[in-house]
């Protein structure tokens, strides 16, 4: 049986090793390999090669397929001195990776040669604990959690849909939540609007939401806007900078207004709506699918579009649809998975049935089409109340 040194020599003779000079060329090339740091967490947090991802040696085999699904993907491995990465390279070759190199001399030689390094941002101990169930998910991890903490999501409405969305986005550590709502907490809200409570009756919903959410998670900054979204204030509110908008509005004028604004500002819009036992959700991602006007070019006449205030809604229904919206918003912030773009999800609580229909971008859409005819805000209240008359 070989001893460690003999085994290391044997492994090194079987893999491709590169020195620092060659490594620098490889990493500067257009077809830059995936750079994987296989050291332990404490070593990684002290400094790394810029652009590297971190997969500790012990988790390499189980996690590499997530990071590099294509076996032909070139991979550049390094550790502190080039020994652990040599064994790692051998393992990846055995997994079928065709183009793997290991940095001889490792990070120590890289740094000694004066090549660039960076100290990665990391979660502090308290955040690592709070978000540990996220950090454990390969699609999120520490990087993803840091992304969420940097993310900014604007919610329209702190009501039925906004309540669960905001609660889960705050719990997830989305760093900044804007809440637009011009209403006060009413007793008839409490059957479903779980952000608020009996003690908050009469308070502004946006303020009540801020208190609930910041108590849940002090990492989150909540920006309340106690106003109804209008053509006059939409630009000011969007100028505060938002990565994703969650639409939980209760009226058509706001829905058309935020659609147009989201298209013009290129911000993904997570749509949800509810009525009695049924809900709908989709994602309107500008440039990557239809917008709300592609789906519904015209609002229905008011007499055909009863609101929840008129028609009622099962209290838990917004819990389900709003949570779906939060899930989509988190995926968009993280850049993972397949968002509900081009698909409208329909949920029927009475039948307990989810179904989906396909949505397509309308090339003739007046806002997101090839030759848009609407390029600035209109009077949305009038647009939604006055239908064109027909002969």
């Amino acid at each position, binding site marked *: 049986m070989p001893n460690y040194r003999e085994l290391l020599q044997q492994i090194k003779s079987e893999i491709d090793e590169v020195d620092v000079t060659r490594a620098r060329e490889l990493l500067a090339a257009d077809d830059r390999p995936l750079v994987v740091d296989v050291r332990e967490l404490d070593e990684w947090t002290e400094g790394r090669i810029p652009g590297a991802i971190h997969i500790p040696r012990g988790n390499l085999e189980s996690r590499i397929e997530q990071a590099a699904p294509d076996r032909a993907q070139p991979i550049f491995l390094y550790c502190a001195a080039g020994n652990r990465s040599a064994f790692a390279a051998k393992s990846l070759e055995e997994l079928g990776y065709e183009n793997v190199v290991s940095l001889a001399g490792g990070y120590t030689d890289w740094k000694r040669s004066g090549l660039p390094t960076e100290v990665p941002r990391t979660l502090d101990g308290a955040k690592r604990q709070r978000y540990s169930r996220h950090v454990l998910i390969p699609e999120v991890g520490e990087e993803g959690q840091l992304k969420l903490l940097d993310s900014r999501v604007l919610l*329209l*409405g702190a*009501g*039925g*849909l*906004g309540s669960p969305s905001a609660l889960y986005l705050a719990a997830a550590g989305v760093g900044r939540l804007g809440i637009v709502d011009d*209403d006060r907490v009413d007793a008839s*809200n409490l059957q479903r*609007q779980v952000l608020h409570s009996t003690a908050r009756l009469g308070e502004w919903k946006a303020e009540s939401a801020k208190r609930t959410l910041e108590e849940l998670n002090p990492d989150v900054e909540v920006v309340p806007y106690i106003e109804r979204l209008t053509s006059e204030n939409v630009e000011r509110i969007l100028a505060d900078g938002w990565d994703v908008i969650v*639409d*939980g*509005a*209760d*009226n*058509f004028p706001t*829905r058309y207004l935020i659609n147009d604004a989201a298209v013009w500002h290129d911000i993904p819009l997570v749509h*949800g*709506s*509810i*009525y*009695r*036992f*049924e809900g*709908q959700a989709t994602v309107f991602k500008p440039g990557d699918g239809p917008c709300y006007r592609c*789906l*519904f*070019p*015209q*609002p*229905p*006449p008011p007499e*055909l*579009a*009863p*609101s*929840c*205030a008129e*028609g009622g*809604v099962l209290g838990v229904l*917004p819990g389900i649809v709003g949570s779906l919206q939060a899930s989509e918003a988190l995926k968009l912030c993280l850049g993972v998975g397949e968002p509900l773009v081009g698909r*409208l999800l*329909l949920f*029927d609580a*009475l*039948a307990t049935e989810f*179904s*989906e*229909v*396909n*949505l*397509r971008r309308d090339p003739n859409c007046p806002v997101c089409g090839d030759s848009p005819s609407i390029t600035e805000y209109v009077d949305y209240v009038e647009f939604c109340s006055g239908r064109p008359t*027909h*002969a």
Partner: protein
Amino acid sequence: MSRIRIPPMLRGEVGGAREVPAEGGTVRELLFDLMARFPGLRPQLVEDGEIASYVNVYVEGEDVRTLDGLDTSVDHGSTVILLPAMAGGL
């Protein structure tokens, strides 16, 4: 025969049913069969002889406006979904 899914805001017109069977080989035939039996649906589904602009009709998950509109053929046993816009969120 196909099944037409009735959205909650229109169920009052069909006696509360979630789904109603209808006969026809095209969307036009199905909708006119449906509206003949439930005349209250007509103003909510049709404008100027076309599908109203605030209602979407899906056959097997596809919007018939991206197919052949009212002339879209519907296979026996298909599910047709009527989907008006809903604004509710609060």
